[in-house]
């Protein structure tokens, strides 16, 4: 299979702290790959090693057929979690600058910057300084900066964090569009729902260690069944229901992971008349539940 990126036994220590512990993954070309885990799981460190910002203490990384990302930087798009813009530069200028840093010539970069801004409704902001942009617009410019040079592989570190709802949609569309164009997208997140909606395959990490990985469908299939319940009323009845392995109650909505062989109908029967049920949905357990189960219910994600 044609892999954009493979990691093999990659390990990173900061002094005595083991930040990344023998992580392995293989990401086929043209897929959206989710890199999941709670804060501090080692996602950013792994991504920085992929980008050759840090070097691994052990293990190998192959990216677009090269050992070192330095050699293929111009074919990579990278959006770090900590991101910003030069306040005094104009939006068009800074996009063109990002493009030129990726090896585009000045004229092409400038035209492409104008085109991207125009397409995403920022045409009139092209000659305005970045300090004048609203936070949402600034985020848009940053996202566009990752794309300006048509990268083959895009790595996004927590791309959704801090985005307003409009930009969350933009980000999602951009990711899907990149996939349509045949690019490979890797993004990290600690919000499992987003990964569930977008990813072809995922890797779940906790405390630097791999928990689960594989195509999303396989991961979900192995996770067992769960009931998704929307309700009104006193949720205390949900506690200690037979056949329920774990309850995740949010007050109006609850997810109940079922024990193997448990019958959802029994669960439903016990609830009828006690709660006002708006939805009762039997399906695969969510990634969140799978993750919690895998780490033994101790994760705080």
């Amino acid at each position, binding site marked *: 299979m044609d892999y954009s990126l493979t990691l093999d036994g990659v390990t990173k220590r900061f*002094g*005595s702290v083991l930040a990344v512990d023998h992580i392995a993954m293989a990401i086929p070309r043209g897929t959206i790959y989710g890199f999941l885990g709670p804060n501090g799981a080692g996602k950013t460190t792994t991504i*920085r090693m992929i980008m*050759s910002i840090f070097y691994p203490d052990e293990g190998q990384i192959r990216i677009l057929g090269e050992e070192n990302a330095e050699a293929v930087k111009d074919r990579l798009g*990278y959006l770090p979690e*900590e*991101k910003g813009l030069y306040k*005094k530069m104009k939006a068009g200028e800074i996009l063109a600058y990002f493009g030129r840093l990726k090896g585009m010539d000045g004229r092409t970069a400038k035209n492409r910057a104008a085109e991207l801004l125009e397409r995403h409704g920022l045409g009139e902001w092209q000659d305005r300084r970045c300090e004048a942009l609203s936070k949402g617009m600034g985020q848009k410019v940053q996202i566009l900066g990752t794309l300006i040079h048509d990268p083959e592989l895009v790595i996004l570190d927590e791309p959704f964090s801090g985005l307003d709802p409009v930009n969350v949609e933009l980000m999602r569309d951009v990711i899907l569009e990149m996939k349509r164009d045949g690019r490979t997208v890797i993004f990290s997140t600690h919000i499992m729902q987003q990964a569930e909606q977008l990813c072809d395959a995922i890797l779940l990490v906790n405390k630097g260690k791999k928990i689960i990985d594989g195509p999303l469908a396989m991961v979900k299939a192995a996770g067992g069944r769960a009931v998704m319940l929307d309700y009104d009323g006193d949720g205390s009845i949900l506690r200690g229901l037979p056949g329920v392995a774990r309850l995740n109650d949010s007050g109006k909505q609850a997810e109940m992971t079922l024990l193997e062989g448990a019958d959802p109908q029994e669960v439903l029967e016990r609830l009828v008349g006690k709660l006002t049920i708006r939805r009762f949905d039997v399906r695969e357990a969510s990634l969140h539940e799978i993750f919690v189960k895998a780490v033994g219910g101790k994760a705080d994600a």
Partner: protein
Amino acid sequence: MRNKSLLVAQREYVENLRTKMFWVGILFFPIMIVLAIVIPRWLEGRKDVRRYAVLDRSGFLLQRVEERAAMPDLQKVFREAIQRYVQKAESFDEFPASVRQVAVPIGDTLIEEAGDEKLLDLMEKREFKDGLQWLASNVSGEPGSDLQKTLAQPMFAEAAKEMEAQREEIRQWWKLLPPKEARDYGSDLSKARYQRIDVAAAGEVTEETLDRQIAADQLFAYIVVPEDPVKGEQRFKYVSRNLTDEDLREWFGRYANDELRDKRLQQESIDKATADWIQKPVDFEKKQVSKAGKQEEVAKEDIALKWAPVVGVYLLWIAVFSISQMLLTNTVEEKSNRILEVLLSSVSPLQLMSGKIIGIAWSGLTMVCSWVLSFVALVNFMPALMGMNLEVNLLKVASDPRLITSFIVYFLLGYLFFSAFLVGIGSVCNSVKEASNLMMPVSILLMLPILAMIPVGQDPNGALAKFLSYIPPFTPFVMMNRAGGPPSLAEYVVTSILLVVTIVLLFWAAAKVFRIGILMTGKPPTPLEMLRWIKAPIGQVPARKQE
């Protein structure tokens, strides 16, 4: 790969050109020079006329003091008139016709005798100064130099006839000239500074009335001359409310002293020439020895050339300090803008760091070169524009290649040396405030060459100067300081090699700190911690203590 550093540098440069601080830096130097010349002149023009009165109980001293005091003033006035005439300035017409008629023949002979360049040199000559003194004595009544000798000069023969005709007219003009207008006829005239209020004419005036006038600010001061000042037993009295400005008292006292001395010599039948001879001070003739071992005249330019490096050091220091500071704030700003990691997806930390350093070096060189250019331009055009003469031929100083080359080269080397420190510090700090704490040791390192500036300037090839030249952080400043010496070629070569090697080592260390620092958040590391980063292999991040 290199191309990317240049891209970073280019952005940095363009960005800097857009900041106000950069233009403040560019303009700082020419503005400073212009102000240094204009402000004293402007203040001179603003000085209040000091109104004073004299109660002359001796009956003779006041008049003699005034005659004597008019001498230097009148010489300045004639000199100014002649100068304006030979320079064909329109302001020559401001002088009354009587003065102009005396000045014209002298000016004409001057022009005949010299080409354009030597005109001012001729006006510095003894004969010319004697002539001025003679002109002044005609008007003031104070006996001047030897009349015959002066008139023997063709330059003044013509003028003597004119003077004969115009003397009364000029005297009258001078006597009635109000102090405020006197300013227009020469710089620093005492007539423009001190205006005596005639109290004798008002009848019997007592000290009490004058005291009241001083209290009411109608009078700045008054002087009481005792009945017999020649005898010297009674004291003069100087009464004023201003205790700090002693100029008036000293000015009056100087001429009173001269007059009394002459009177006493006369009384004791001592020849004035003999007395002058007895009091004659030792007169040194200053010579220097050239490289070839010959004695040469010491020109004012030579002295200026010896001291110009000190000014150079000061400017160098300002330039290095402010430009390195620019690097620091830019790095810190980029870090707090969170833009660094975005850039790291396209460029390596080393490219980023070198790009920043190069970009700011361009900004600095632009600034420093603009200083050099504006200095040369000012020296060339300023005197003409301001209508004044520089005592020293600054052009010779301005165009000395050793000074200018030293200035630019040592700016670059000095900047590179300190940039390694500052880019490292900038990379680990999240705010300028944090950075200023870490800056302390570097600032102290920067202070030393300033403290050593004067001693090194006095003895450019002395032990201290030589010793400091070999210490890399001081090399640029001290070698600039010694440019007047100048140091031997071997010294230039050895100190430069030492400095460049140190810079390379520092860059290697800075790159390691930069690499880790730019991605670090939270408390900045201690210098010891940074030392551990430098020791660690590339790509490894040593643990922080608190973790």
